């Protein structure tokens, strides 16, 4: 296997581009894909301040690194979700990355801990509110990401959704014809109604490429899966798409970029689209839409945009705080067959 660029020994093959790369030229390819998508969708300009939502996973850490590599001014935001050992390990990875890769290039880390600041955590909020953990989690993350971006005066909130994530969310939305969500599934949502601009610069890169990027850059990340994610719909959609991709390399990219080119405008947002974004209770949709709840007024508790008197995050906090913490094991989904 030879590198397409220099004919040196290749370390990775990318079937959808019919290309093999050595380490150096693979890293360059990743930077080029991010630059290209940032220009294509006018996501950000040099000199703007970006806030990257980092989870400790491969995508968000690779994204922060890539933006710093490309010369952007980018800080990280980590939200402690209180999901047992998983969150402890995730926080450790994020801090190690910050010290080694971000701080030397001027990137600093903002940390918000659900338990410390709001006396809640994801398992307890899920149990008390009788909701799916990913729904309580997604709601909290969206709220806190938006708030940190606005309060910190950042020009954009950046999330690490990759091509596989976006194709899987699109697949789910198409399967159920969630037209309001479809109209807002774009890699760049402009700031509006008190919500920050939201951008997803990894949409041209696959999950496998992001993991490879981390390995080749020497970035350690949280490899274990969130215990709440087991068997969720997002993973099922990914498995379905990966089966198609095996037969037809490039299918996922054609599906997602074809949608952006040919279809998203037909579902353009109107009043109906404000009702729910893609907050369908599954991961992959976190912090990615300016949906929330209509943006007609301001929350009486926290001042965030909402069309209720109290926003759904403050409602969640009011219901959950003061409750004894519920351990992860009690809210974990039953393990179904493995989706690989």
């Amino acid at each position: 296997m030879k590198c397409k660029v220099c004919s040196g020994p290749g370390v990775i093959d990318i079937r959808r581009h019919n290309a093999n790369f050595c380490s150096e030229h693979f890293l360059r390819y990743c930077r080029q894909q991010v630059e290209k998508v940032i220009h294509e969708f006018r996501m950000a300009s040099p000199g703007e301040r970006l806030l990257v939502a980092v989870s400790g996973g491969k995508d968000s850490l690779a994204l922060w690194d890539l933006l710093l590599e490309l010369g952007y001014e980018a800080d990280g935001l980590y939200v402690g979700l209180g999901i047992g050992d998983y969150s402890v390990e995730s926080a450790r990875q994020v801090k190690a990355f910050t010290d080694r890769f971000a701080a030397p290039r001027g990137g600093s880390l903002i940390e918000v801990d659900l338990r410390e600041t709001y006396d809640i955590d994801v398992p307890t909020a899920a149990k008390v509110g009788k909701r799916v953990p990913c729904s309580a989690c997604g709601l909290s993350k969206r709220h806190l990401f938006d708030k940190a971006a606005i309060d910190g005066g950042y020009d954009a909130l950046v999330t690490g959704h990759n091509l596989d994530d976006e194709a899987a969310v699109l697949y789910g939305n198409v399967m159920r014809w969630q037209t309001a969500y479809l109209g807002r599934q774009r890699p760049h949502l402009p700031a509006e109604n008190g919500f920050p601009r939201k951008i997803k610069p990894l949409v041209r890169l696959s999950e496998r490429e992001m993991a490879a990027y981390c390995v080749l850059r020497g970035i350690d990340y949280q490899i274990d899966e969130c215990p709440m994610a087991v068997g969720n719909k997002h993973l099922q959609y990914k498995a379905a798409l990966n089966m198609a991709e095996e037969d037809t390399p490039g299918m996922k990219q054609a599906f997602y970029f074809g949608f952006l080119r040919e279809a998203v405008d037909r579902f353009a947002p109107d009043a109906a689209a404000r009702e729910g974004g893609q907050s369908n209770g599954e991961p992959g949709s976190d912090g990615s839409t300016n949906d929330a709840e209509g943006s007609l007024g301001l929350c009486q508790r926290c001042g965030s945009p909402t069309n209720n008197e109290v926003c759904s995050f403050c409602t969640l906090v009011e219901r959950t705080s003061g409750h004894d913490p519920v351990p992860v094991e009690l809210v974990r989904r039953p393990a179904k067959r493995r989706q690989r």
Partner: protein
Amino acid sequence: MRVLLRQPTRTIDVDGPMSVVKLLHRLDLSREAVLVIQDGTLVPGDAYLQDDAEIEIRPVISGGA
């Protein structure tokens, strides 16, 4: 060879030498869904693994965020 697997983390021993493709096939893993890692770098699919090799097979698909 010694193979480190993830989710959950565990190690298994496999008799080598063997090609990466054959090893993944034997473990019933898709090449698109995992990376093979040795000494901090990636091992391409056409590489041959020696009997004394120590490698990691890391899944790349995640359901969380």
